[in-house]
């Protein structure tokens, strides 16, 4: 009896494996090359930033949430991919000085860090669109969040181990949106300075994460090789179902509205661009 092996198929499979191994995007901890914006992108970012600065200054509020569109999440029914706090720190010499305090994933690695950056840089960070959304909190909460950030920059509820699909309330992972949510929850209750307590507050206020569907095949072939996408943070049941609860910008804004914590909202675009609907 002769053994006939499907050499052609084996060759194809081998080539596919080699391609995966050689593809730069699949390695854990992606490179972090500086991205030089084109002059056109620089100009659009400048217009978007100036527009936001003008609107924020006109409203004379010390702090707000600001969301941007960093990537296309339309397949998940989402628009905004990232949110942080925009804070006024102007003085008489620079009355329009605003900055953004937020959690950023370090170059696709499994770690995040807290940053303070200027408004222009916020809009230069490779946006998919120059549209942004600003949400003003109720005055009392606004002051609480401002004081909390002034006291510890949100480090009390910060977890450096990062995952874009971090499970809400996870003690081992956090994404940028969950950090914002936990800062707000902790600030709203004096003396709360841990993620555990912030999570308890969010539970009592019925915070509901969004469910992100990730097919098993995509998880195996894409997720396991990306350092900033950690599936093991979620339960086996979740992984089998493929429906992952994740803190999204949309879920944060919904939570704030349902708990009547929003004072007003504003959607901004760079001059001449139509507003993209959704959140």
């Amino acid at each position, binding site marked *: 009896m002769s053994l006939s092996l499907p050499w052609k198929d084996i060759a194809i499979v081998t080539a*596919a494996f080699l391609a995966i191994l050689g593809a730069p995007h699949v390695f854990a901890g992606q490179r972090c090359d500086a991205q030089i914006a084109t002059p056109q992108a620089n100009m659009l*970012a400048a217009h978007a930033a100036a527009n936001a600065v003008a609107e924020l200054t006109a409203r004379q509020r010390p702090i707000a949430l600001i969301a941007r569109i960093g990537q296309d999440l339309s397949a998940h029914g989402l628009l905004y991919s990232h949110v942080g706090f925009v804070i006024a720190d102007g003085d008489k010499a620079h009355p329009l000085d605003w900055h953004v305090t937020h959690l950023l994933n370090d170059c696709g690695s499994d770690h995040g860090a807290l940053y303070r950056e200027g408004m222009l840089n916020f809009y230069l960070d490779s946006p998919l669109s120059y549209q942004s959304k600003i949400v003003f909190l109720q005055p009392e909460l606004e002051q609480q969040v401002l004081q909390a950030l002034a006291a510890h920059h949100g480090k009390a509820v910060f977890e450096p181990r990062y995952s874009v699909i971090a499970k809400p309330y996870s003690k081992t992972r956090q994404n940028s949106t969950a950090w914002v949510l936990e800062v707000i929850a902790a600030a709203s209750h004096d003396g709360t300075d841990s993620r555990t307590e912030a999570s308890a507050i969010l539970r009592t206020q019925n915070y509901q994460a969004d469910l992100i569907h990730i097919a098993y095949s995509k998880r195996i072939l894409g997720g396991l090789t990306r350092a900033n996408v950690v599936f093991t943070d979620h339960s086996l049941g979740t992984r089998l179902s493929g429906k992952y609860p994740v803190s999204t910008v949309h879920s944060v804004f919904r939570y704030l509205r349902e708990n009547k914590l929003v004072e007003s909202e504003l959607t901004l675009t760079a001059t001449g661009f139509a507003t993209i609907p959704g959140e």
Partner: protein
Amino acid sequence: MLREITYLLIFGLIANPIYAQSEASVAGSVSGISEATGALIGGAVGAGSALTIGAVAVTASAAYLTVVSAATGASEAAEYTLEIPLALAERLSKRAGEKIVATKDVNGTRLDCADDFVAYIPAIERTGSSGREAL
């Protein structure tokens, strides 16, 4: 079976899904023109200095343009270096000495050389800073 596995693998490479909020961070400014350099070029434009294309230097991953400002009654001639996209480098390297036209708008100053949009210098006092610092 092997064919199915192959297709699945290839699909995985093409799909390369990005799931939720992932915000890659880069250090410092991403504009290619520092606030200090921008302020100096802006000052030269404001003083009426004529700007011209200077040398272009290219490395494996970046390109740098020297902008030359002519002396005026109020200021001396000077050179400023700014990082430019690699795609612009080849064309600008052939235009040394050509005039740069500066056009101001409400949020900054645009620099053009012939058909090339060379740089945009934001008016930081309107746009906010391009800096970033770790907390």
